């Protein structure tokens, strides 16, 4: 668990983060979101002591981070930044194994870990001998993520890691990191200003503005009950209702039983996909099927429009 208690930090006279308190449960995929300059990166960088708070304290697993030497603390926390920040004079393999080298792992242990990471992230082994400038942006960031995971830390901090990538690489890496999170149960703190990315990945979320925490909770709870106009606007204003549909699976609103609907949608698909299919096929209702294709029931447009208790 990561806990920030009444943390403040000024840069010169301007407060970057003001009286900020937050609990991040172990195993969460926690997204810090807000407009540029809202202080979200500062919060992230305070967790691994890259920036020290002026006031307040930060605890990891109940221990004040100031009690640990900064270098030691950081070797136990994975870190990924937007531009990957790979060492240009090291090969991809050397970059990935940077932290194990700092921790003086044996060559055999490092080699085994490298193989595991390469398999986990789907890195082409031929790339390992290349230097960063010989890699594409997506490949570099994959190496960057592997470097963060190398020493198997409990906590991974990611500062807009996919913002500079092309849409295809971005979605692929989001998928990758989401799978790694689900499998490993690591705590991930993820900074982004992209609401779609945040909603796709987050199990927990905090919206920030002007250095302050505006609202924290699950993505659904924030979408359903925005704390104020800022959150509402940031969530997408008019698109808010459509975004909400993206979070709810068809399974929750379907009516079991027989159906005469001809178009079929998967039970785990989102309401947004269902609405999309209705619009595309000009039907008011769809047949809901499970993974094996067995018919489970029906979902009607009215169910989506009049939805209650979508949570």
């Amino acid at each position, binding site marked *: 668990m990561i806990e920030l208690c009444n943390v403040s930090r000024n840069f010169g006279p301007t407060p970057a983060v003001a009286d900020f308190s937050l609990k991040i449960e172990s195993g969460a995929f926690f997204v810090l979101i807000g407009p540029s300059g809202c202080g979200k990166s500062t919060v992230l960088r305070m967790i691994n002591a890259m920036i020290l708070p002026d006031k307040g304290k930060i605890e990891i697993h109940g221990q004040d981070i100031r009690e640990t030497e900064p270098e030691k603390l*950081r070797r136990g926390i994975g870190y990924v930044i937007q531009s990957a920040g790979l060492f*240009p*004079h090291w090969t991809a393999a050397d970059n990935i194994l940077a932290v194990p080298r700092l921790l003086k792992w044996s060559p055999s242990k490092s080699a085994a870990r490298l193989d595991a990471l390469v398999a986990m992230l789907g890195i082409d082994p031929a790339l390992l001998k290349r230097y960063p400038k010989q890699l594409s942006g997506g490949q570099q960031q994959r190496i960057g993520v592997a470097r963060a995971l190398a020493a198997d830390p409990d906590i991974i901090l990611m500062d807009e890691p996919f913002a500079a990538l092309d849409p295809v690489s971005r979605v692929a890496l989001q998928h990758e990191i989401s799978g790694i999170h689900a499998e490993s149960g690591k705590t991930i703190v993820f900074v982004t200003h992209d609401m779609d990315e945040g909603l796709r990945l987050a199990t927990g979320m905090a919206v920030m503005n002007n250095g302050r925490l505006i609202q924290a909770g699950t993505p659904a709870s924030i979408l359903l009950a925005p704390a104020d106009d800022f959150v509402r606007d940031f969530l997408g204003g008019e698109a808010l209702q459509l975004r909400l549909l993206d979070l709810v699976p068809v399974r929750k609103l379907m009516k079991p039983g027989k159906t005469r609907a001809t178009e079929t949608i998967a039970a785990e698909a989102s309401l947004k996909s269902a609405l999309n299919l209705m619009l595309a096929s000009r039907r008011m209702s769809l047949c809901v099927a499970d993974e094996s294709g067995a018919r489970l029931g029906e979902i009607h447009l009215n169910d989506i429009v009049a939805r209650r208790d979508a949570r």
Partner: protein
Amino acid sequence: MAEMPKVHDRVLLALFSLGLAVVFSGGFLNHAPNRLATGVAYPLSQAPALEAAVAMTGLCGLALLSFAKGQKLRTFGTTLAAALILWGSLAGAGHFAAILMQTGPPAARASLGPAFWTLAGVAILAIVDAVQRGSFSFLARVGIGGAFCAGFFLMAAAGDFDSLSLAREFWNNRGIFVSELLHHLGLVCAAIFFALMIGAPLTVLVLRKKAAAGFVFASLGILQTIPSIALFGVLIAPMSRLSELLPLLRGLGINGTGPAPAVLALTLYSLLPLVRGFYTGFSEVAIEVKDAAAAIGFGWRRRFIEVELPLALPALISGLRVVTIQAIGLASVAALIGAGGLGTFIFQGIGQYALDLVLVGAIPVILLALLANFIFEMLLGLARRNL
């Protein structure tokens, strides 16, 4: 109508034209009864026919090669043609001098004229150009350089140059030549050592405190603009005063004249290019790379040694290169305040109106600078290998 042949290499054509113009207008060898007399200038056409023909064949070869289309043909052809020019001129001058000296008085001198220097210069420029365009490997460059040096030393050992006054001056001074050469190198190395000792902390200062950067660079810039002879002169008074006051310094041989003020002046001149090169090198290491290193747990010492230093290395080497080449040249002036070095020959030669003695000092200075440049280029290539 036949098509006009196309010029593919203007450099070669220009070199040919320059060589041709000077060969027909300037003397190849100057023969004088003694140092002070003006003497007679003999053109290349009166030199031994075979050697002159070889040199002219090489020169005309350059003209023909400038119309050659293939890059490879031009590169190899140019190297060969340049070799012909160089060997022809060297052998021609040596043998021609031997013939002239048979008849003259013992104090007579045969010195190299503008046509010789132009031909030698044309040959060297053509080779350098060919080697650079041909992007030869390190070994090939060393091989080509080695072959030319070997040929030169073989001719010298065979006594081909014995009648040339330049060779005679060199031979007369051979005893002190090596010691002055080492002395020269000593001045340069000492200056670079002290410049590094002062420059490194100054670099740290300007990197840490941006406010200090302006002041430091402005002061070093002023030092850099003081003419060298003036700085050497200005240092004499305070240095001798200091040595009078502190017997310890006097004991160490530190005085108003001699090597101490020379090294001090060379050090001061080296500071600006050195600190500026180092500063640029370290400040151009990408901020996100430094940031990432710190964030994954590199301590500042490891970060400096393993990340910042290797990434800044090319700029550091470039800075050192500028400083070394500059110091090699400036150290010749230091002979004026009794610091010794190759400048000794230059100023002696000027004083005695013995231009060949000037060359005994000046040519090695040029060669040293070229050698230093070559070594630093290689180091730079190594440092940039993976960047």
